[in-house]
């Protein structure tokens, strides 16, 4: 028996009213902030999913996205590092099609079933770009979902799956493209999405000996708000009661993460015994059937998931801001006083323990927790001056209090001193916050973000920031 042990999700705090994209357009979509990408959203979903989980039993991490910040460099290994997983874990990055998330999930289920791993974490995230003014720009949203696959304490048991491969140029992005492209939409939907999804879902019903009425709900990848209803009717599902709301007008179509996020949303409401179908689309379809188990109750309220993220939001002020965040307008190069030193890959490697899982040093003599702000090591205790008597402590999942803060117009972001629960102090940027709402001693949490390196030397930097709690 294999299946889902835990789930998690992430939706950026930022939402853009579709009114900004076209007069009279209804609804909104989730937009990654200027310091977010598929990697940072995946980390957030992974942390949500593995909260209170014994991470020593995680034997693998799969990351799936069509918008990895790297064409060549692992993201799953970064997630494993942030989570402080063992070094001997299997990591893999999936990409290429919008099915990558469900394919990774199926692989994880098979690996666990084969006994090659106890638990595998599968994280899907996407941050796709539609060309300005296009329908894709209106329908695409950003987000992430994570599942811990295992064989005990299941929240949902994997029952069966049906998988279709299909060659078609309907929606694609070449290696040189920034924006997703597509062929004429009648072709795309009739010969692509509807035909293939219908084939896969019908195939699963047939293979599993199931009729549409047996399903509690279906979490169906939906390119827009309309087609999913058409698909549901075509396969015999009641679009009103048996299809998970595709969140097109609240989050948007989140690409690789879309079906997984809808599956999380379904699990948040489902009770043990319910049968749930998940189907993705992209040069074929992965369709999987699950039975909800008792373990789902344990997760309710213990994960932010979809519900916990969707409510907390801030609106993107205007379209220009969005274009700047996505790097779609070219601004004059920032006039940086004097030479700015470049980030160093060798220094980042040395400092990987303090950068990714935010390890601090706790003095074994006096107990003072000190974050090594100046580099990888911390040799002498600031308090009792004892040398080389430290243990490393994980700080990234601690909440803290905003000890002091300020906002200056040169940096353009608030910064503050954070006192962490249990000890330790950090000086961090405060992201996604309305500066007018900041108060000394208010509660904050930490979030892993992409840095705005004024000179990058071809490197993306990532580090932790503080943010007002999402829930």
């Amino acid at each position, binding site marked *: 028996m294999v299946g889902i042990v835990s789930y998690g999700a992430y939706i950026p705090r930022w939402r853009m009213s579709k009114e900004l994209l076209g007069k009279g357009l209804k609804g909104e979509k989730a937009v990654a902030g200027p310091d977010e990408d598929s990697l940072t959203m995946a980390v957030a979903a992974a942390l949500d999913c593995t909260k209170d989980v014994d991470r020593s039993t995680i034997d693998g991490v799969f990351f799936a996205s069509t918008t990895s910040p790297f064409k060549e460099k692992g993201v799953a290994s970064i997630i494993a590092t942030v989570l402080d997983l063992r070094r001997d874990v299997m990591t893999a990055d999936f990409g290429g099609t919008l099915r990558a998330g469900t394919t990774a999930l199926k692989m994880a289920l098979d690996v666990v079933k084969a006994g090659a791993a106890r638990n595998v974490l599968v994280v899907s995230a996407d941050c796709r770009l539609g060309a300005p003014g296009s329908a894709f720009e209106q329908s695409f949203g950003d987000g992430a979902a994570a599942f811990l696959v295992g064989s005990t304490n299941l929240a949902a048991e994997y029952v069966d799956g049906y998988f279709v491969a299909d060659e078609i140029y309907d929606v694609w992005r070449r290696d040189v493209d920034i924006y997703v492209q597509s062929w004429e939409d009648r072709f795309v939907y009739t010969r692509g999405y509807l035909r293939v999804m219908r084939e896969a879902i019908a195939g699963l019903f047939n293979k599993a000996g199931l009729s549409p009425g047996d399903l509690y709900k279906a979490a169906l990848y939906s390119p827009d708000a309309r087609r999913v209803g058409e698909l549901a009717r075509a396969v015999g599902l009641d679009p009103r009661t048996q299809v998970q709301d595709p969140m097109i007008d609240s989050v948007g179509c989140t690409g690789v993460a879309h079906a997984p996020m809808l599956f999380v949303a379904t699990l948040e409401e489902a009770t043990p015994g319910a049968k749930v179908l998940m189907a993705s689309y992209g040069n074929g379809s992965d369709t999987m059937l699950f039975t909800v188990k008792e373990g789902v109750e344990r997760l309710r309220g213990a994960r932010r998931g979809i519900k916990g993220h969707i409510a907390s939001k801030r609106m993107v002020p205007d379209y220009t801001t969005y274009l700047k965040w996505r790097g779609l307008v070219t601004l004059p190069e920032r006039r940086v*006083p004097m030479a700015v030193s470049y*980030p160093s890959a060798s220094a980042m490697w040395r400092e990987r323990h303090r950068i990714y899982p935010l390890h601090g040093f706790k003095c074994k003599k006096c107990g003072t927790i000190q974050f090594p702000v100046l580099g990888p090591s911390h040799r002498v205790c*600031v308090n009792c001056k004892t040398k080389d008597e430290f243990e490393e402590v994980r700080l990234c999942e601690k909440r803290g209090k905003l000890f002091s803060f300020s906002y200056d117009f040169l940096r353009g972001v608030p910064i503050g001193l954070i006192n962490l629960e249990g000890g330790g102090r950090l000086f961090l940027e405060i992201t996604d916050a309305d500066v007018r709402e900041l108060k000394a001693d208010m509660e904050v949490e930490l979030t892993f973000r992409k840095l705005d390196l004024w000179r990058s030397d071809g490197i993306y930097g990532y580090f932790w920031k503080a943010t007002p709690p999402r829930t």
Partner: protein
Amino acid sequence: MGCTKFDEHWDKSIWDLVVDACYEAFEDAGIEPKDIQAAWWSSVIGGFLGRSLNYALKLDYIPVSRCENRCASGHDAFFNACYAVACGAYDMVLVCGAEKLKDAGLPIPGVVDPAEPYISRVDTRFPPPAAYAQLAVRYFTHYGIPIEKGKEILARIAVKNHYNGSLNPKAQFQRAITIEEALKAPIIAWPLGLYDCCGITDGAAAAIITTPEKARQYRDDYVLVKGIGMSCGMYQGEYKDDWSLTYIEENVRASRMAYKEAGIENPRKQLDLAVVHDCFTITELVIYEDFGFSPRGKAPEDVEAGTFELRGELPVNTDGGLKCFGHPIGASGLRMMYEVYKQLQGKAGQRQVEIRNQLGLTHTLGGTPVDSNTAAVAILGLRGA
């Protein structure tokens, strides 16, 4: 001593400023450039070699050392020159500090750190106003002072320094301001506004140091170095999570070292004036407490009472301070000494304060309250002090 006007010197190079400040000092001391046996050069971005100074002055193959210690550079160079004279190695040396920030801009901690040429760069970058604003937020929070009230106290410090600067022909900003102007000024780093922050400026200042015995051969009103103190922090502002962020320990340590050497037990009573590092008005506020001018938490009351105004009990920043001079980093410490030097000699014109105990204090502070600082304090006095 010598000191240029501090200004936006678009039409002068840093070497013009160096020549102007040093030749004023030579003339003031009554010596020739050839009398200088060694020199110390204080500049953060103005010239990275000791001999950079000599490119301008062309002193004849003498030793020149560069002393860079951020905002405390001027004091540090001065201290090293004093030590060299005190130990008997030389008896006539030059210290010069100069900076030309208007051409290049201010190096920002975390963005430019000459000590860390190649690092991961993941840590939070911040310009100085954002760091000192944190001190203001925490000071006000700690003492239960509403932000609006706190800003008014800071505005009073700005008004005082701008008044003093209005009387000083060498200041960059020679305009008095009102509390209303200060409170309504644009925000630079909340809650600090334009008048809470010092400017970015070009300037140079210089001092000639010799032995007391030799000084007597040149003039009667020579000024003695009565005591010096320097203290360096250890990034305790972030390493220590119980650090209160309501004061600057380095200020406390450096001032006590200098007081001890100068025999000062009650600085508020014994000092005739102090010229301190008002990079931001909040810095000057905590300095009052750090230096023992005011009890902890009581500096706002002393500000409201006018204690530190030009005609107050202990005038502070009589020349207008960094508020009116701006902060050409390597030059500021020597610019402060220039003011105390002139005040002790009774040559401060409209700004002249009453010289009772013949003692004045100067102070620079390099660093930020959110990590740590280098604080440097010098007590200068006349022969009878």
